[in-house]
């Protein structure tokens, strides 16, 4: 695929690092961990909605990466493989009976408390609306939206991460867009900056 990748693209370097991890190189693993911890944390936080559980799942995900690095066969990007592990961890966590779906203060704490000039305020208004709209999505729909727009994965990669057919990804995006459109009417009609 010759698509333009977002700036987060680090595929080749990731593969080199993972190969070193597979040989037991702890320094390489630490680099890989530092590279992914924030992205994984935000992704898992979006899935399980509780910071402590998200952190625990980051730990579990990266521990699996360490232990199973040699099983990576290069059929996908390293990021797809790692996010696939994280996705399975989130699914398992969500099935646990003690899982608490909502941390009602989480969204508020993600807000930037220091708005700046007018355009920054407008940007934050849009960001706030998008964030609120995401709360109306099912976990599966939210996952597809976040993996696409926040983490820059292709629909084929999202199918691998979510463990579902490509057409399911497109269908989920279709329904997610419809819900977003309902919640973000102004943005979708071009009336909001």
């Amino acid at each position, binding site marked *: 695929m010759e698509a333009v990748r977002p700036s987060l693209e680090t595929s080749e370097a990731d593969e080199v690092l993972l190969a070193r991890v597979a040989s037991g190189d702890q320094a390489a693993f630490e680099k890989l961990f530092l590279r992914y911890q924030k992205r994984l944390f935000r992704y898992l936080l979006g899935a399980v909605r509780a910071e*402590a559980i998200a952190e625990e799942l980051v730990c579990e995900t990266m521990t699996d990466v360490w232990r199973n690095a040699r099983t990576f066969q290069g059929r996908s990007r390293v990021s797809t493989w790692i996010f696939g592990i994280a996705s399975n961890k989130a699914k398992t966590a969500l099935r646990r009976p003690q899982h608490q779906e909502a941390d009602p203060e989480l969204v508020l704490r993600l807000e930037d408390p220091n708005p700046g000039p007018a355009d920054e305020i407008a940007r934050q208004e849009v960001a706030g609306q998008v964030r609120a709209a995401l709360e109306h999505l099912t976990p599966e729909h939210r996952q597809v939206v976040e993996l696409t727009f926040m983490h820059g994965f292709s629909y084929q990669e999202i199918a691998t991460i979510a463990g579902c057919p490509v057409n399911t990804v497109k269908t989920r995006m279709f329904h997610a867009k419809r819900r977003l459109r309902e919640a973000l009417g102004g943005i979708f009609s071009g009336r909001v900056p």
Partner: protein
Amino acid sequence: MRHTEQEEKCAHEAMALLPWYVNGTLGVEERRAVEDHLSTCALCPDELVALLKVQSALRRELADAPEPSAALWQNVKGRMAAPPAAADRSTATAASRQGRTAWAWISDLLSPALRPGWALAVLLFMSVQAVLIVGLLMKGPLQTGPEYHTLTGPTISGEPSGTRVRLRVAFVEQATEQAIRIVLEEVRATIVDGPSAAGFYLIDVPLLNGAGRSRDQVLRVLRGRSGVIRFTEVAGG
């Protein structure tokens, strides 16, 4: 025009691909198909602009997202006991976890420097918690008063010095033992008493002079972990 009508009118495959046109992951042919469609469709350009705004908002949110706790790397390091070459011989990590003793499981979670003393303390803590929970279920609430016992580590007698602070905390009912442990380790806290009839624990935390944080920083960290801790205050304050 309502968008449901738009979807009916614009059933072109390109519309389904717009999100991935926006994030730049389409192949050459798919990208050209979308661009051809955009040049002729009166509706999809609006959706393209909207999706660009959604992407911009979410990318900024990722950049502004809170960092995971500093203790995270230490937690992962503590679980790296098995080198990859040895571990991946088994077909599944889960299989290797089955049949492990509670001791090994706890020990893996802690950094090597903290083993085995902390593992014993945590195991003891879990055992006492289990007994307390069974007791609560069978006998009703525990009485408050002078019958508290230290749950982990040695009993700390007298008031804490200026290098430590004691806090009264209550954990979220659904918080897992692992999540509680991560938060306590983050501020190097030791449970010294509890639970009370209302479910409060007394924890002892080293402060700045003891190579830890300031009292306010500790409170801020604990109050920021609302998924695990539902109440925090300075004991006796």
